[in-house]
């Protein structure tokens, strides 16, 4: 058996186990959402974060980059909640963040969101089933831009941030600017009409 064969066999096994991994994370997130006490919620969030972290590290290694990006988003959200509290669940489950298209690979674009109202815009895209990566600062944008197919920009501060990154010579993927009144879904659909 060649190395390529061995790696392909491992990828196939990992792919077969993916629904179970997602279901386990889903259950942990549900426990966090439905917890009756703060202590129970903290425990479930920690467990969810650990599971998301595992997926974050392994999915891309096994060739499922988009699952890894979604898992990273889940982990980062949970970590932000642990550090600052606030709204933990703009999504109900991993199913909202990693719907079948992500697992099956039928969504063809990963969208990097840079926006003044990034959480709201990102939540809208996630709810619409897009693989979405919300970046909060310049380092994140520089680091993650290469993972995306489109950088979605909304708001003056976000535009300034993107310009600043470009002025450093960083190459960003295709940039889409949201006009007033245009929904993010509509903007992306224009670019990728066959991606849904």
């Amino acid at each position, binding site marked *: 058996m060649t*190395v390529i064969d*061995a*790696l392909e066999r*491992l990828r196939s096994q*990992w792919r077969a186990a993916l629904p179970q991994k997602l279901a386990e994370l889903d259950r942990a997130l549900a426990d966090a959402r439905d917890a009756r006490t703060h202590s129970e919620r903290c425990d479930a969030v920690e467990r969810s974060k650990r599971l998301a*972290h*595992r997926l*974050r*590290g*392994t*999915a*891309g*290694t*096994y060739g499922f*980059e988009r699952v*890894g990006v979604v898992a*990273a988003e889940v982990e980062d959200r949970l970590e932000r909640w642990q550090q600052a509290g606030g709204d933990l669940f703009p999504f109900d489950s991993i199913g909202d963040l990693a719907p079948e298209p992500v697992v099956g690979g039928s969504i063809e674009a990963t969208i990097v969101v840079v926006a003044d109202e990034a959480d709201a815009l990102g939540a809208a895209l996630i709810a619409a089933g897009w693989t979405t990566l919300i970046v909060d600062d310049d*380092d*994140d944008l520089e*680091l993650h831009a290469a993972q995306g197919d489109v950088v979605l920009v909304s708001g003056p501060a976000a535009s300034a941030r993107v310009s600043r990154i470009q002025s450093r010579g960083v190459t960003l993927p295709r940039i889409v600017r949201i006009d007033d009144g245009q929904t993010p879904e509509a903007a992306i659909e224009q670019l990728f009409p066959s991606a849904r």
Partner: protein
Amino acid sequence: MSRAATIRSVLLVDDEADIRLIGQVSLQDVGGWETVTAASGEEALALTAVRSFDVILLDVMMPMTDGPTTLAALRARGVTKATPIIFMTAKARKHEVAAYLSLGAAGVIAKPFDAMRLPEEVRRIVAAVGQP
């Protein structure tokens, strides 16, 4: 002669079985190195007490004894004091990488990694470190 040319054995430490599996195929079959895996910092410390490795790849976030704690314990021992230790982590932003390097790691490899290119990355880091 560069230190990279002397790599014969690698210890891969990660609590995630999926990473140990694909990492072993990569390091052993692509890199051509004897590869031993450990599922925890404790197991790594036990293994390195009875034999030596040319390079140690160490996951950062592990339950019980995490990567940085394991690295500190390895550095405190004479036998592994100078062994190149490379962190592997899914959290590899600039400030995080800088923090890991400041702990004494030879380098940092970000997860996810490309199994076909992992040995090349290990060689590059070890060569940059040079002779102990």
